[in-house]
């Protein structure tokens, strides 16, 4: 203790310097952290609070979510739909990302341009486009008529329509995540495999595919988590029969003014999302998802 005091007395400027070094990052980060706590964490905390206090203090809302069949079906449906959309995005997106990463020149540039265009086009524009395509006066129904197949099946306001729309909207996220991982794969690995006698298919299976797995995990996680909370597209293209969690939240506050129950549903969605991300964080570290 005395030694420390002496040292500080001998070199006062170093102590001031150390204090300033510690204070500067907080001065810089302070406004952002304060704003995030007051204007983001507190509102979310309010949702947590409402979920157990509105209209009275109890866990009844959570009990209802997991025991009333209508609500358990919403949970299961959201989960299954998100899995299907993730799988579809992976299957459709993988070849696109593969060609983008492996081909040089205009093919790659063209694909990247198309992916970027669809990435930046708003959800509502794309949802509207599907409304036209799948509608009763749309091109699909028209093709059915022209080919003499009779009346087209109901595509809009169906599970099919909403799944297709969500897949289309989330596909760019998957492709960009895959592409980011694939671009890092050294082409020499594949050349080495070829020179050791591997056919292209075998080189792909044994070398490229395993090296692209981090991208597969990142892309799948991004798509899955976004899909869990998807709102606009399922409302506009789907049916109330296969409601997703976010539709349930909206319905509860819009039609029933049931804030407590809506909050409990939101908390379940939040916990599910954080759970999935926590598993990822445990194995890979969240920084890699955003990096």
């Amino acid at each position, binding site marked *: 203790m005395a030694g420390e005091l002496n040292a500080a007395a001998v070199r006062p400027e170093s102590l001031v310097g150390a204090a300033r070094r510690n204070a500067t990052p907080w001065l810089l980060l302070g406004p952002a952290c304060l704003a995030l706590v007051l204007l983001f964490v507190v509102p979310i905390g309010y949702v947590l609070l409402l979920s157990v206090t509105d209209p009275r203090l109890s866990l009844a809302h959570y009990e209802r979510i997991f025991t009333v069949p209508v609500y358990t079906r919403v949970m299961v449906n959201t989960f299954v739909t998100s899995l299907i959309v993730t799988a579809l995005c992976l299957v459709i997106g993988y070849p696109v990302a593969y060609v983008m990463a492996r081909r040089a020149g205009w093919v790659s540039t063209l694909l990247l341009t198309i992916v970027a*265009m669809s990435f930046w086009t708003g959800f509502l524009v794309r949802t509207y486009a599907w409304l036209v395509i799948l509608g009763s006066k749309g091109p699909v129904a028209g093709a059915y008529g022209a080919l003499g197949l009779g009346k087209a099946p109901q595509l809009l306001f169906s599970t099919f329509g909403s799944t297709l729309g969500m897949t289309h909207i989330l596909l760019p996220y998957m492709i960009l995540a895959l592409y980011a991982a694939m671009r890092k794969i050294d082409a020499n690995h594949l050349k080495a495999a070829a020179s050791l006698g591997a056919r292209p298919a075998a080189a792909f299976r044994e070398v490229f595919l395993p090296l692209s797995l981090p991208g597969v995990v990142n892309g799948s996680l991004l798509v899955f988590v976004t899909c869990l909370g998807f709102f606009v597209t399922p409302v506009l293209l789907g049916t109330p029969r296969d409601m997703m969690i976010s539709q349930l939240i909206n319905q509860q506050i819009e039609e029933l003014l049931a804030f407590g129950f809506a909050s409990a549903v939101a908390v379940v969605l939040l916990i599910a999302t954080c759970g999935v991300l926590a598993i990822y964080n445990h194995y890979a570290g969240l920084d890699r998802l955003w990096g």
Partner: protein
Amino acid sequence: MLPVFLAVLGALFLLAPILVVVPMSFSTAISFAFPPPGYWLGYYAKYFTSEEWLEPTLNSFAIALGAMAFTMLLVVPAAFGYVRYRFRGKTLVNLLIMAPLIVPHVVSALAYYGFLGRAKLTGTLLGVMVAHGMLAVPVAFLVISATLKGFDQNLERAAMSSGAGPFRTFVHVTLPVLRPGMLVGALFAFLSSFNEAVVSIFIGGRGAVTLPKKMYESIRLESDPVIAVVSTLLVSAVVLGVLISTFLRRRSTHAA
């Protein structure tokens, strides 16, 4: 050849539905019929003259600009503090900054509905601006902190040792080098607000209808064909933006 074929199919799946909105915007049909029965410019005239659509457009621009300014004001110093200093609780700070990206938008929307409702800020431009500003923090932070990490601090040391003070160094060396990254961060913040739908739908009320909210309501309630015009204008803006950025990137890689 198979991968290229599949990739082309995938790209067509991405692109074709978006292009459908272009002929739709010139259609004479009152409902969503495709192919259009006839072509005219009537709905363009309607878009550019009706208060009902122009007001949400202006709202969207105003909110996105405000949210962008708010985000940048918070994020630029925060990114400097985060990247250049070591301190306790860094992981927690990172989690806090990323939180708006982790929490599903519909949960944030519900939270703001309750919180801003209490403050009587639902249905106001300010309320949506604040909410969008917070939601844009992670995106802007990722872009700007990445730029900062790539910044060679020797440039600053060189300026300082040549006699420039900290302020002059910041204005004449640090800022110009970081400007492109800052602009990209600001653009991302702007677009994050401009395209945001869920929070707007929940808290926009009657007083702060944004373009995505208006489109959502127009599809849900009335099927107004003007939505095709809006969509076409938005797609054109995206196409233009992406082409410009591709061109700029190609030019910069050729130069280097």
